[in-house]
């Protein structure tokens, strides 16, 4: 049997969900037997490949690059998983929505900077006016809330998905957990 093509991406988030993924410890080995990691911040692929079976998305959609990326990923992915509160709800990154992107940029790059304060315009993707959960931009197949979801939750999720079904993980995950 060929291996399941798995990808993970890190958008507007803190990487805590990826840490939690690594927290599966020895269970990673068991998972690794069944999957091929085709794209991830944890491996060295530069291009998001075609025909991915499962993509775990960490993080909210915060800038224009995130938005373009997730649209491309959606096209190339069979099962798209929103992993963790940022991807599921917008979470902490979305807290800037109540004051707007401009206010945040000014606070960070102008008000609190003494040396040559300026808002970066080149080589940094422009912020969207509104940070939003992944589902506001593309269709999401599975939601795993949690900040971060525990290693047990992610393990249960992957075991289920790899066996070909969407597991019920409602007892293992909740917003903020």
């Amino acid at each position, binding site marked *: 049997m060929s291996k399941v093509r798995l990808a993970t991406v890190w958008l507007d988030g803190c990487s805590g969900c990826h840490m939690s993924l690594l927290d599966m410890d020895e269970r990673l080995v068991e998972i690794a037997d069944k999957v091929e990691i085709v794209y991830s911040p944890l491996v060295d692929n530069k291009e998001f490949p075609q025909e991915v079976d499962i993509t775990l998305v960490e993080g909210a959609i915060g800038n224009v690059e995130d938005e373009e990326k997730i649209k491309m990923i959606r096209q190339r992915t069979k099962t798209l998983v929103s992993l963790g*509160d940022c991807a599921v709800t917008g979470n902490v990154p979305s807290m800037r929505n109540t004051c707007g992107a401009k206010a945040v940029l000014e606070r960070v790059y102008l008000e609190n900077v003494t040396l040559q304060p300026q808002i970066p315009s080149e080589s940094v993707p422009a912020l969207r006016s509104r940070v939003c959960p992944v*589902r506001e931009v593309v269709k999401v197949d599975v939601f*795993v809330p949690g900040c971060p979801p525990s290693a047990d939750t992610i393990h249960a999720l992957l075991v289920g998905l790899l066996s070909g079904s969407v597991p019920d993980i*409602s007892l293992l995950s909740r917003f*903020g957990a």
Partner: protein
Amino acid sequence: MSTAPARVKTLKIDDRDVSGREEETILDVARQNRINIPTLCHVPGLSPVGSCRLCLVEIKGSPKLFPACVTLVREGMEVVTKSERLASYRKMILELLFSDGNHICAVCVSNGNCELQSLAQNLGIDSIRFPYRFPKLTVDASHQRFVVDHNRCILCARCVRVCGEVEGAHTWDLMGRGTSMRIISDMNEAWGDSETCTSCGKCVQLCPTGALVEKGKSVAEMSKKKGFLPYIVSMREGRR
């Protein structure tokens, strides 16, 4: 105690034969029989308002839905508390509540001890379908011991009721209407400046979310003690 003998009604809840006194609600009788109906605005001991709509139930023979917290039992009534339709409505109502505030559980002192959060889990909500509205709301930490965070307020008015009905201070009320409705203390002034607040903390303990909390707590450290209310209510009834 009232002298007139209470009349007892027999009815069915989820196909179980149960009985209740005529002044009891469907919710009262369901809970006596360990039938779970979700609620948010309802607190035994405070006047019922029927505003969260989570406890809506079906009654056979009627196309309408009935709030279990205010609907009195009737003879021969057949109540359905669980159906696909009810589950879908309850989910949507909770999702609306999440979309209408800034409920960032991850950085909430009530994380893990929140009625809104645990209801979402119990009803199987893993994501909010409606776009978040991100209202611009304030946090008031002017009170010596407590904080009110409007971002996390679901406007259930438990605080308003316990303050007016039990403490008797009526420091809290609601201002405005619709989506601009907020809880206020006195003349919409800083809580710390309130001239009527007795700092009893009843509102804080009854608040279902992290909107009213004690100062000095960090994320997930705030747990609330709600036992005082049944105690006060039963003591008062005994004195009467």
